[in-house]
């Protein structure tokens, strides 16, 4: 019975360390629409989950097919007019929050495509965060 205690504590300590330290920001459901031929730009969408207790900010991204990558947000005014603008300072991912990049809202804009993105293709994208963290994700290209 006594020999179990230190082992138990050690296991607990390791478990806590794993939870607090390395889980970090999780990205999933990353997708983009197959680009119409001639399209120069494409949008990537995803779900960014920050389960930690520290906020972070997505400040940039890189992907091979894209000449440049910017963070954008589409928004609609009261009259139904849509406009799109770069998100100054990056996309904030507050502690404990989930931020969705989805059609009609926040998205990663891939500019200057070097080829038409086709359904079934997977585009590796490197995401950069203000904290210095980076994440490599696979964006699934699908139609509609």
């Amino acid at each position, binding site marked *: 019975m006594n020999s179990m205690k230190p082992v138990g504590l050690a296991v607990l300590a390791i478990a806590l360390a794993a939870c607090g330290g390395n889980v970090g920001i999780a990205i999933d459901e990353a997708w983009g629409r197959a680009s*119409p031929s001639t399209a120069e730009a494409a949008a990537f969408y995803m779900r960014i989950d920050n389960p930690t207790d520290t906020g972070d900010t997505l400040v940039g991204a890189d992907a091979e097919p894209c000449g440049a990558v910017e963070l954008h947000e589409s928004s609609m005014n009261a009259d139904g007019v849509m406009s799109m603008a770069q998100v100054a300072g990056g996309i904030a991912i507050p502690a404990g929050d989930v931020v969705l990049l989805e059609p009609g809202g926040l998205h990663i804009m891939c500019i200057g495509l070097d080829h038409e993105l086709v359904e079934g293709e997977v585009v590796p994208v490197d995401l950069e965060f203000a904290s210095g963290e980076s994440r490599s994700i696979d964006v699934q290209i699908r139609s*509609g």
Partner: protein
Amino acid sequence: MIETTEPPAPPPPKRRSLLRVIVAGVVVGLIGAFFVLRLVRPYEYHGTVLQAADKAPAIDLDATDGSPLEWSRFEGKVVALYFGYTFCPDVCPTTLSDVARAKQIVGSEDIQAIMVTVDPARDDPDTLRQYVTSFDPSFLGAYGSDEAIAQAAALYGVYYEAREGSKATGYLVDHTATLMVIDPEGHLRLLLPFGVSAEDMAADFAHLLD
């Protein structure tokens, strides 16, 4: 001798069953009324419904199939008219993709999508045609002079304005993202705001085709 009192006699059988019949009748009646009202309730579209006495205003533009854009060409069809541009990475592909899917769901060739470009400087006819047909081979683009496009937009209450973007994007164009739906009789009938799902669009198109 112990005195016992008789329990009170139950109500006579006839009266009890009459009560049951009445209650049952009311319940059935209410359920029936609920379903009947659901059936006769008018169909609800997913956008603003217009009651235009006049036909949809004509616009002086050319379509990407080589012929002028005239509404008489689409009599008997539902026309989904959209003002957008090919450089738009998020809103326009989303809407056109949803319209393509809605057309597939309805399963009819009597749905015609048309995108008027609000960016004629970058969207030449060939680029426009390739772009719209990527969503569905039947889709048409519409183009013309700056004045003709401005006039068409004004007729349909569409606002558009070029805005400075970044060096990478070049200019961006703000634009009304509403889908204008012209019914098979040629009247502007329905305005669908951005964000209506393909399923809801399909339901509305199917209803107009009925």
